[in-house]
């Protein structure tokens, strides 16, 4: 297993370099250049030239990328226009909020998704099976922010059960219970689609192994059906499910942009949304870099976990 993980780690390094190259190239497709964006239309030509020289925009592309990388390695992602702070500072202050939402969503999606998938696999081609297929179709076709709006409308504005915006109440807020209440709707919104995908993958992975010899053996030993499913079948169906959970974790990071915007959740996604209208390119660039690197990291961890639960991968 170790050799696989090490090999996978070596494959990750060029991808990380590639990710930095792509985020660097984002400034190359700007109409005009970064100096124009940073100074706005009112600036004089002279100050533009000064900033260009200061940013090294008059140098070759290779030198610019090298400069970008050396800044990156020292933790310098530039200055945000909207927040008037270093990009890295803003990202660091909001990372925990985005991670909190993404982690609770993936836990919810995995736990409920695997449970529903198992429930459905016990009776394939039944009413509950068609129910899952239909739910997947609808969730697959639903803009995630629209689901958020519907939840706000029903549970926030009509029933008035749950808060719909931010992380804590302005009055009497701040406690753990208050935070949990604020998390319910955004977590549900973020988790919904992944939950359906995980349920579906669990269903088909279970159906793939449920007719195996070892399951029949377990049954013939007179074990209870619950024990056959939970101890003998489900663990053997997990590898493809883990892969899907890993992929979904990445989508949750990017889905955070939409969900945080709908619920004014003070994370990286909401900040990026605020950056779009102000053309805060340095911040958007930094946010994309951070989220993409987290995506790469999550995928690496998932592959390592995969090798752990499925030692056969060593042979491939």
């Amino acid at each position, binding site marked *: 297993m170790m050799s696989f993980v090490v090999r996978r780690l070596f494959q990750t390094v*060029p*991808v990380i370099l*590639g*990710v930095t*190259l*792509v*985020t660097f190239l*984002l*400034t190359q*497709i*700007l*109409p005009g250049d970064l100096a124009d964006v940073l100074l706005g239309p009112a600036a004089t030509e002279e100050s533009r030239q000064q900033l260009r020289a200061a940013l090294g925009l008059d140098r070759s592309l290779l030198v610019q990328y090298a400069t970008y990388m050396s800044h990156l390695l020292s933790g310098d992602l530039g200055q945000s226009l909207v927040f008037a702070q270093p990009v890295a500072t803003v990202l660091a202050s909001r990372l925990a909020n985005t991670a909190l939402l993404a982690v609770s969503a993936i836990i919810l999606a995995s736990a409920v998704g695997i449970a529903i998938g198992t429930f459905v696999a016990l009776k394939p081609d039944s009413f509950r099976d068609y129910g899952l297929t239909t739910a997947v*179709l*609808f969730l*697959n*076709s*639903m*803009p*995630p*922010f*629209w689901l958020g*709006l*519907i939840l*706000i*409308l029903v549970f926030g*504005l009509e029933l008035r059960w749950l808060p719909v915006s931010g992380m804590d109440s302005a009055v009497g807020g701040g406690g753990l219970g208050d935070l949990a209440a604020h998390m319910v709707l955004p977590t549900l919104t973020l988790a919904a689609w992944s939950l359906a*995908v995980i349920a*579906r*993958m669990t*269903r*088909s992975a279970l159906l793939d192994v449920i007719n195996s010899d070892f399951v029949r053996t377990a049954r013939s030993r007179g074990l209870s059906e619950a024990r056959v499913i939970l101890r003998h079948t489900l663990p053997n169906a997990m590898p493809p499910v883990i892969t*899907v959970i890993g*992929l979904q974790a*990445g*989508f949750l*990071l*990017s*889905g955070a*942009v*939409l969900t945080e*915007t*709908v619920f004014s959740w003070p994370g990286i996604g909401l900040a*990026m*949304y605020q*950056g*779009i*209208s102000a*053309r805060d*390119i340095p911040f*958007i*660039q930094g946010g*994309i870099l951070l*989220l*993409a690197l987290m*995506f*790469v990291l999550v*995928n690496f961890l998932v592959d390592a976990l995969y090798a752990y639960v499925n030692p056969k991968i060593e042979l491939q």
Partner: protein
Amino acid sequence: MQRLSSNTAFVAGILLLAGILAAALFADALAPHDPLLANPSVRHLRPFTPGHLLGTDELGRDIASRLLFGARLALLVAVVPTLIALAVGGLIGLAVGYAGGAWDSVVMRVFDVMFAFPGILLALGIGAALGPGLGSMIIAMVVVTIPAFGRVVRGSVLAAKEEQYVEAARALGYSHWRVAMVHILPNVLGPIVVYATLQTGRNVILAASLSFLGLGPQPPTPDWGQMLSTGRTALAIAAHVATIPGLAIMLLAIGFNLLGDGARDLLDPRMKRDQP
């Protein structure tokens, strides 16, 4: 034909899309009002108000008319990026899959890097860098979907390359170009058409998402994602302004997804339904 008509999902998808296409084509005739005409005296009218079947928005514009004209844009931003990405990504996949070797490795590594970005994130970056608008939104969508098309086509080509008919065509002395375009391409079209249809459904959501974030066509253009985004501010007093365009987006995406699922069952029965 028997298989076609028994496939209810496929037929339902076609009917749904035909309805939306008709709405888009005949928007001029069907729309009761000018979609851009603001009328401050009738702001936020409820649905089923006489004269305004689906009510009015924050500027008093008729929502039904805006939906009908918005259908044009919705179809455009779903289909056009798919076709461009299919052509570009498909040709790249066909070329490197057929040629193999160093080019294949280089292109696949580039695709690996692009897959390291969750799709909407890279699209958001490209859209924000190019500046908001229809054109940059389409460019962003094309760039982020090319790698997937490239991979699907390359995978099919790699499998087809080993078939005997390819060997036979080569043995007859046909050029690589002819073998790739005339012999391999038609044989790998099935999974590609299926993938393209499902991607069109995903594009509906991607376009609506970019539009929602302010990167799509700018006001006052009637665009579903943008209607939803502006309607959101008045959710408490006039929820229909945001919920109705969302419903339209969902119907369009369901149409393409049903069509794609149906096409998969028809063209490619071996493809597993649960592949992400």
